[in-house]
């Protein structure tokens, strides 16, 4: 097992298994797997996981499209919402009495994680064996990853 080469290959294993790599990259990964038992074992596991991935139920697309058409009539473009807000203010209607619009439960700044509400109710750190990662620096994360790679996966 060659650490740096294996690290690079392991990053690509999921894409290799799923056929998402360019031919040249796929050949490189395949060559490495032939000679590296550790990476091959990981590739076998990833292949099993990929093989067993669940399919979406038939009819899901049609149901979603039908539901969106059904609810489409109630969708307000931004100018519609603005007009409604102005009208509500003009009439002295308190906006706070409205029930929350489910459409507002969508992230606006997905790329800025700090601005979002937490996605997860459970704390993985409370589960045995799951490290609490959020407070760690990138350096600490890389050290942890290195420890798992060198000492754990063998």
């Amino acid at each position, binding site marked *: 097992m060659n650490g740096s080469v294996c690290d690079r290959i392991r990053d690509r294993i999921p894409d290799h298994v799923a056929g998402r790599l360019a031919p040249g990259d796929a050949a490189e990964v395949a060559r490495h797997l032939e000679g590296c038992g550790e990476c091959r074992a990981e590739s076998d596991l990833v292949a099993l996981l990929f093989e*067993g991935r*669940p399919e*979406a139920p038939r009819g899901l697309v049609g149901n979603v*499209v039908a539901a969106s058409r059904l609810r489409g009539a109630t969708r307000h473009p931004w100018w519609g919402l603005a007009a409604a807000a102005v009208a509500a203010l003009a009439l002295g209607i308190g906006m706070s009495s409205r029930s929350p619009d489910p459409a507002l*439960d969508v992230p606006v700044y997905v790329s800025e994680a700090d601005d*979002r509400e937490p996605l997860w109710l459970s704390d993985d750190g409370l589960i045995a064996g799951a490290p609490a990662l959020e407070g760690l620096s990138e350096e600490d994360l890389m050290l942890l990853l290195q420890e798992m*790679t060198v000492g754990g996966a063998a």
Partner: protein
Amino acid sequence: MLVRNSERWASTTDEELARRGQDGDEAAFEALVQRHHATVYRVALSIVSDPDLAQDAAQEAFLKAYRGLGGFRGEAAFRTWLLTITANAARSMLRRRTRRKETELDQAPPVVSGGPDPSEQAVVAQEAAVARALLAKLPEKQRLSVQLRVDEGLSFREIGEVIGSSEGAARVNYFHGIHRLREWLR
């Protein structure tokens, strides 16, 4: 009709479809549904652990995305935006449900001798089912990191956006999950 719609938009990016959807183009939104429904369903299933509930959560996620397209500003990839909505929708649905079915390892197809001469394909299918059942036992962030990387091909940066972690934390979650699965399968 759905197939024709899919072909029509084949070379159009998600972001362009989203922009058209913002302008009220229903066909563009339908193309996004066709493109991402399987991924959305799998992410929802990973969180709620129930196929029926996952289907409801997937539908809810798409409807929320449809109604919230105006909030998509293109600062992140549409797919990660949609999957973040999906995770929120699935978690909300799980909270609302008073009695949820627990997916236990023993609910997976048992690994038994497949008969006198089981085909290799059947054995692989059984092993794959066991691996997926074990995947469901991982802590949430590890599970989603493995699933999004293996099934959907998301980068660690994208995974971090979806699960609310840094790129480095997503990478550690992935490899920690893979490491534990290998231990369990030994």
